[in-house]
């Protein structure tokens, strides 16, 4: 925290001193305005598609279907009919529950493995280098989609929840990041804990891990986003078992079938809104959360880029 405040202060000072020596011409001011406008436009372009979906989901079904172009605002009466429909739909509720279950269990399991490995690799043992090499080589070369599928098939995991939790729960990158994180904890902390008689598990869990949680949180956040948004594993391993489908596969299906309801004699136009409502419902939790963790996630990108 201290360091951050210091850095911020430093930046402001640099900026202001630069300001004092720089004489801006008219052209510079014009350039300034252009830069502000361009950056703002890029930022808006990044947000507008989601805004469009949100506004469509709140529109009147029949009018939304006939409307062409971008939804700056909802069309017709403000309408929550689409949301009412998705929360009555048992399949979407089960998709939600599955996604939460997969995200929590895969992230939890993955973090435990990554933390244990990171701690073990940060200790001075004879097998440290060969094992690190063994882990890192999986980042360079992989067996590929089919051989992995075959192994999971032999394990009997195809068509079960295991295939969506275990294989993707962690990776060499997370382990190496945890190793770096434990390496940066002062060695005195470790020695003090060991001299006080703590075993390795206790030292790791109670003394070292709290100090190493900076990157630990980054790993957890990345893993949550990754699993929340994942669809490929489910489409490979549980394509026919709809009870196990995560939310993303339901979105895929609903978007593909969005015109089917019109075959009814008396169609309920709110059904047109379902695809938009479900996109909002699936995306909003992540989008609402990430600004709070933005600093940590940025740090993760920088740490991953430097060490990766």
């Amino acid at each position, binding site marked *: 925290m201290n360091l951050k405040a210091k850095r911020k202060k430093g930046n402001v000072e640099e900026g202001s001193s630069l300001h004092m020596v720089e004489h801006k011409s008219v052209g510079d001011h014009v350039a300034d305005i252009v830069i502000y406008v361009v950056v703002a436009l890029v930022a808006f372009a990044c947000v507008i598609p989601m805004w*469009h*979906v949100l506004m469509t989901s709140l529109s009147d079904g029949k009018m939304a279907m006939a409307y*062409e172009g971008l939804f700056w605002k909802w069309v017709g009466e403000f309408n929550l009919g689409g949301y009412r429909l998705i929360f009555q739909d048992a399949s979407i509720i089960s998709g939600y529950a599955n996604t939460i279950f997969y995200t929590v269990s895969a992230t939890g399991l993955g973090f435990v493995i990554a933390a244990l490995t990171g701690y073990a690799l940060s200790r001075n043992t004879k097998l440290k280098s060969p094992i690190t090499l063994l882990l890192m080589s999986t980042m360079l070369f992989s067996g590929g989609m*089919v051989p992995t599928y075959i192994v999971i098939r032999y394990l009997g995991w195809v068509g079960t929840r295991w295939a969506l939790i*275990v294989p993707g729960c962690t990776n060499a990158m997370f382990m190496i990041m945890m190793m770096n994180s434990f390496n940066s904890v002062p060695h005195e902390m470790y020695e003090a804990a060991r001299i006080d008689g703590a075993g390795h598990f206790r030292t790791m869990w109670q003394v070292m891990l709290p100090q190493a949680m900076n990157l630990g949180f980054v790993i957890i956040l990345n893993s949550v986003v990754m699993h*929340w*948004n994942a669809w490929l594993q489910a489409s490979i391993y549980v394509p026919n078992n709809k009870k196990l489908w995560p939310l993303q596969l339901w979105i895929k299906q609903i978007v593909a079938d969005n015109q089917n309801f019109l075959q009814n004699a008396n169609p309920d136009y709110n059904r047109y809104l379902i695809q938009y409502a479900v996109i909002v419902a699936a995306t909003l939790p992540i*989008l609402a959360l990430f600004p709070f963790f933005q600093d940590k996630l940025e740090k993760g990108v920088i740490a991953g880029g430097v060490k990766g």
Partner: protein
Amino acid sequence: MAKGKTTTYKVPKISWKRDFGRNWPVYVMLVPALLFMIVLHYIPMFGIVMAFEDFSVAKGYFGSEWVGMKNFIDLFTGEQFLTALRNTVCIAVIKVTLGFVPPIIFAFLLSMIENKRFKRICQTMSYLPNFVASVVVVSLVQEFIAKDGPLTLLLTNVFGLENQNWLANENIPVFWIIFLLMGIWKGVGWGSIMYVAAISTVSGDLHEAAAIDGANRWQRLFKITLPCIMPTVMMMFVMGVGLSFSTGFEDILLMYMPSTYGVADTVYTYTYRMAFGVASNYSLSAASGLFQSLVGTCLLVGSNALSRKMTDSSLF
């Protein structure tokens, strides 16, 4: 060199027995990761032998008939794989060249904004697409460039292009451009993080001195900022080239359709379709996957070596 040698001699040699006696709990901690890596990464690597077999799940790795290079010959004499290979190369090249620059430009623009609050808000907004699931991003693309989508209407009414569902267009660069633009939309903000961080470490004194000497902002940008962040740019480029052939094609599975296989099919999607499609052929799929893995690894190692030779920076 000499320094390194003396430090290695300082570490007292301990025997394996003492090492295990003292560190066995540490080794126990490694067991889950080793199991994970061996079962889910190393056995599949061994499983690549199925690319050289007429593999059937019932017969297993050792029971299936060995056919040598037959699967590879089938791949390279068939038409589908060669089309997929051409598309993969073209998409990768476009991604590495045209897709590489926007985050850098965006980072430069951000660095020139003095209002910290405005800058932060714009950054947050630009990160947003990175957190949207692929399924949702693709359905957004489908929505926006469908026959009556907002972007299609814009292209038709303002630029006079033919009204059509752009994703169904089979002409050569259309799908590639859509895919490139989708990637840029997803990654422009998130990809700029590294560059913004690198730019913020450039010393303010340099800029001040240059400004006193009368350098304007563009001169400072090209003579100070760009050279200072060049190692980062090189590193990202090496990583981009290294990963270009093997990653980032998953989204195409959601975007393409049989009528656009000619332009949208890639090695990755071909591998997927051969394995899990209607006519599944695990051996052919494994061969295609192995080809992709090998090219990917060669690119990664090669671009890294080149970067180490030409500049001082390398990934590993």
